[in-house]
């Protein structure tokens, strides 16, 4: 199907079952509303943006981005530094709120929330939309407290010990820290700290995990561990991964969005983006002609 409208189909991949509306070469249009296109509730997009623009003062860091991110897949956002990847990602769980002068226009839905709607409580949203930051930022407390704290402040009523173990196992960190759970997390290596941050985020059992260049401060071995982990995480979680590393996006993601100068240039299956992108700028970027 080589029209300017592309319907992608990854064989034996869940995205194939997602009803994708017509995709102009430049942008992915989401379903106008979830009931307009029949789809099982299970596979409905978990994040949809509609002409979303994000401003810092007068400067538009993200301009009219429209995309729909499907559940339980890894969606990578790539693009040169400063193109607005982090800004877009932080909008999904309202971590941009802490930047004075930040303004949002357009639509953004995340799970059941109109993210910037007046009725939305960012605190509630953030429990369901976790985040892992570029630099590992464990609390200067024990490993155990790092994982348990988020659950505790959110009124978790289950068994904390069990939750800590389960989260650390899911983050592939348990074996390395099980004997020093109550020692300071700052004594862990950078890669371990980052996996601890992932464990801490998934302890809240979020639906979505946002990761902003989670490997950029890590060595290659730690990076490949995190990449394996991301691959395992998509069983349960929707992962949105910002990376400036194209190989990483190609390795771990199912879908890739390419951004350039605040615009979402192309959003498609990772395969397509890296083998036959529709946009000239995407092609230039992935072949290394700029950036």
């Amino acid at each position, binding site marked *: 199907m080589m029209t300017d409208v592309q319907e992608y189909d990854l064989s034996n991949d869940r995205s194939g079952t997602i009803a994708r509306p017509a995709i102009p070469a430049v942008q992915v249009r989401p379903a106008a509303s979830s009931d307009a296109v029949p789809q099982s509730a299970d596979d409905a997009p978990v994040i949809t943006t509609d002409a979303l623009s994000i401003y810092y003062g007068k400067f538009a860091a993200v301009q009219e981005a429209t995309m729909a991110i499907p559940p339980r897949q890894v969606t990578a956002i790539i693009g040169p530094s400063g193109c607005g990847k982090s800004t877009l990602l932080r909008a999904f769980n309202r971590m941009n709120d802490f930047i004075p002068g930040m303004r949002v226009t357009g639509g953004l839905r995340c799970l059941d929330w109109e993210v910037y709607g007046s009725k939305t409580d960012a605190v509630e949203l953030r429990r369901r939309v976790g985040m892992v930051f570029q630099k590992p*930022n464990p609390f200067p407390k024990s490993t155990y407290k790092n994982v348990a*704290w988020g659950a505790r*402040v959110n009124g978790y009523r289950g068994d904390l010990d069990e939750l800590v173990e389960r989260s650390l196992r899911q983050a592939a960190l348990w074996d390395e820290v099980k004997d020093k759970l109550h020692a300071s997390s700052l004594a862990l290596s950078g890669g371990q700290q980052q996996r601890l941050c992932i464990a801490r985020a998934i302890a809240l059992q979020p639906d979505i995990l946002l990761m902003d260049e989670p490997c950029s401060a890590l060595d290659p071995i730690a990076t490949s561990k995190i990449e394996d982990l991301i691959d395992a995480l998509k069983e349960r979680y929707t992962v949105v991964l910002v990376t400036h590393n194209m190989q990483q996006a190609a390795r771990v993601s199912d879908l890739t969005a390419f951004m350039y100068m605040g615009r979402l240039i192309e959003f498609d299956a990772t395969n397509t983006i890296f083998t036959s992108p529709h946009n000239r700028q995407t092609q230039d970027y992935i072949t290394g002609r700029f950036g």
Partner: protein
Amino acid sequence: MSRSQADWTLAAPAPPGGSYERSRTDRTDALFRPRLGLRRFIGTLFAVTCLLMTVAAIGMLVVLLVRVGLDARPWLSRHFLTNFPSTLYPERAGIWSALVGTAWLIGLTSLFSVPIGIGAAIYLEEYARKNWFSRLVHLNIANLAGVPSIVYGILGLAMFVRFCHLGRSVLAGALTMSLLVLPVIIIAAREALSAVPDSIRHAAYALGATRWQVIWHHVLPAALPGICTGIILALSRAVGEAAPLMMIGALTYVAFVPSGPLDTFTALPIQIYDWVSRPQSDFHGLAAAAIVVLLAILLTMNALAIGLRSWYQGRQP
């Protein structure tokens, strides 16, 4: 704009052979006049000057301390600490009432100034919007920290002694001292709070914590050593202040200890001032002894501040 091979050859090291060596010497000779001797001489001169200034500063302090220590030596005894002052018998005079008065004063002052100071700092740093108004407030607090202490005495006299009818009580003194130390505490606490990295705050917010939880569980504990140091240093300033207490009319001769916040009182600096201003040399010796006690208290407080900080830093998990 593809990066061609040519871009890389520029950064590559010079090829082996004589040309690299020769060009290096040529450039050095032509472009630089090292004058190493002169530069080293200036460096030595600077270091020696700084050393002399250090010696001058510390030397004067040492002379002062030694003189006070020698004057105080014959008068320092256990009785000096536990006796009441006496205007007739210097050999039986002590600083008990001044010590207890100072303890009352500092106790009440910290009771008022610490919660208010920390609360104000948290509000200003964590809650208030950063706009021109909050900057103005900050600037004015910094200015208040520089206001001479006698001015606070005048304010205390008008407000607490007269207007609130607290009289010359410890309470009036402590309230006045609180005004004096509040700006210092607020500034120190604010600095400690703003030194807490934002990455910690963001990590906590991203876990679905409320602002209060973020502050209470992470920001405040991380800032606590700095806040405590600031508080102790501010209070040690209050311990040594005489002027505002004189202004609100603290008594100089008190032969009893306050039994409640509304009692009259004296304090160490006032007692020292009283003794120094008497003509008999015996009282000057008493004053020296009281100064030694005051210095010991101040040193202890400062050591406490340092100790607290390092203890806290060692105690991570």
